[in-house]
């Protein structure tokens, strides 16, 4: 009896990790086909490219953890990338018009808090669905950013921004170091503090959390603010990567964020959105796009590959779950 049960345990565990295993196999295949894929330089490239998506995905996963992971009625914040471009726009405009870095950062921070607060109020006070609220806020905030920047590209060569792009600490890229620290801090906050536990309780079962005395609405509000702050943090990396603020980066960032976060959910054995899943999703998607690119696959195919990834990984996760139950 006992060995049987253990064998069943193993099977469930492997089934749970099946999407991740398949993804890694695919990545290995791409790695053997693409020249210089498994090198340190390429690893740096993969991580550098994934930085912005990692940061916004952490914000999104916090919101989903608190709101529940039903995409339509649960928690979701699609407006994070819009907050990012607005903050980037504000910083770029102020710095190029002779304003100081402190002023730029303070105003951008204030703008992000305003966006987060509006999201929070609309969702918890007015009772709008998060999907709808944050989709509409996405459009409104991008619109405001287009007014701020007049829809123009703004070049920026402020030392802070260039350092973020090409500076190093102890031989390691500065940008990667900072995002690693932010990620660890977020992990501590979401998984190792009382607040993080409450958050997960609220997302797991709203009613149960409310009955045991948690102030669910307040927790949910706080995650929208946290998400907006992650959007603010991301803006520096968007500025660093683009050497300034350019219109139109928000659409792609939003799609990548959703892709990484929900792909991350498929990677987790219980198929729930987790912060680590989101980070892993962001890095792996970046790895596979760079892999295909260095295999010489035309950039027009990127969307096809990403779309197929969603379908394959998510569908496999669902099938594995059904198989595991049977």
């Amino acid at each position, binding site marked *: 009896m006992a060995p049987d049960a253990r064998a069943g345990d193993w099977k469930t565990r492997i089934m749970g990790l099946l999407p991740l295993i398949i993804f890694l196999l695919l990545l290995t295949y791409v790695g053997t086909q693409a020249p210089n894929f498994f090198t340190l330089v390429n690893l740096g490239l993969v991580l550098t490219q994934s930085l912005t998506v990692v940061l916004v995905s952490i914000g999104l996963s916090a919101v989903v953890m608190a709101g529940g992971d039903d*995409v*339509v009625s649960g928690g979701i914040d699609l407006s994070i990338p819009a907050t990012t471009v607005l903050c980037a726009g504000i910083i770029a405009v102020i710095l190029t018009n002779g304003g100081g870095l402190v002023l730029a950062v303070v105003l951008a921070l204030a703008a992000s808090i305003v966006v987060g607060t*509006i999201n929070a109020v*609309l969702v918890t006070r*007015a*009772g*709008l*669905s998060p*999907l*709808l*609220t944050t*989709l*509409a*806020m*996405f*459009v*409104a*905030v*991008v*619109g*405001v950013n*287009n*007014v701020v920047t*007049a*829809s123009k590209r703004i070049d920026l060569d402020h030392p802070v921004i260039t350092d973020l792009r090409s500076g190093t600490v102890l031989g390691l890229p500065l940008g990667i170091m900072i995002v690693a620290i932010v990620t660890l801090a977020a992990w501590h906050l979401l998984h190792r503090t009382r607040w993080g536990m409450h958050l997960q309780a609220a997302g797991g079962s709203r009613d149960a959390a409310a009955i045991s005395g948690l102030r669910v609405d307040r927790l949910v509000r706080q995650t929208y603010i946290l998400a907006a702050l992650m959007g603010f943090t991301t803006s520096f990396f968007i500025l660093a990567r683009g050497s300034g603020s350019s219109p139109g980066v928000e659409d792609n960032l939003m*799609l990548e964020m*959703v*892709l990484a976060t*929900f792909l991350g959910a498929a990677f987790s054995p219980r198929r729930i959105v987790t912060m680590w899943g989101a980070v892993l999703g962001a890095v792996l998607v970046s790895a596979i796009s760079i892999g295909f690119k260095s295999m010489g696959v*035309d950039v*027009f*195919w*990127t*969307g*096809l*590959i*990403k*779309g*197929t990834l*969603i*379908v394959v990984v*998510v*569908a496999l996760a*669902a*099938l594995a779950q*059904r198989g595991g139950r049977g």
Partner: protein
Amino acid sequence: MQRSALSIHTLRNILIQNGFLVVFASFFMVFAVSNPVFLQGDNLLNVVEGSSVLMIMALAMTLVVATGGIDLSLGIGLDFGAAFAVVAMKSYGMDWAGAALVGVLGGAVVGIFNAGLIVGLRMSPFLATLGTFFIGSSVQRIFTNGGGPNSHRQMPQSFRDLATGDILGLPTEVVIAAVLIAVYYIGLERSIWGRRVHAMGMQRSAAIVAGIPVDRILVLVFVLAAATAAVGGLVAAANIRMFTPLSGFSYLLDAIAAVFIGAALHRRGRPNVLGTVAGVLFIGMVTNGLNLMGLDFNLKDALSGIILVVALALSVVQRKLRSAN
């Protein structure tokens, strides 16, 4: 004393019952005062005509949202409809009816793909249609070498008439939208099939227990929605005499917003055809009114985004208050 309390109470009630109407009317008045052109018959017809494609998209979205899902790939349906029709005329010399049919079938392919993912593989509609969106966008890039438009200046006049012609003095695109409104109204609000769609949207498990063929309905809904979006694509292609890749996405958010404004107007908060029509007309009016105010393009964009957020918030709050009363 008592009387004034009573009248305040009634005033509040009127606001609660008709909050959205009040918003609609105030914007209408602001636009009318700021530019007298707004009120002219021609311009009001412009509002309706300019909203035709959005109306068609929003009807399709209403159907999907009524089942409790969402379709982020509706724009791909529009793009495919336009692409298939333009290619059918340009490369195969088809007449307008053949091209329109091919276009609608092309759009339906997107719906069949979605249905396969959602019903066959049990993916959530959000993720499935997001995947379809990625794939469909990429397919368009591949076939147009990066997204260049495929123009067809010499398209048959009969096809062009889908957008620019007149039927009984009304622009054809308005007539197409009106016919679709009628079809959707009867199908979704006045038929047993429509009642089943709403039932599964409200309580999926109860609907299954009640013996409603949930899977069959889902397949039909996603195929119908994509085919309807393709009709929007036909009108858009006829209007500009070309197929512009990746243009459908721009209607997506407005379509979703119109559906949810419409749902908030419903007494039980359900997505419904007439509510969607009101939502689309509101969005069309705001776009037109802001245009006439001669504002800077960027400012106009930002304002319409903000107005959308406010309108959504107000309409939901209104419904909450009303059901609390």
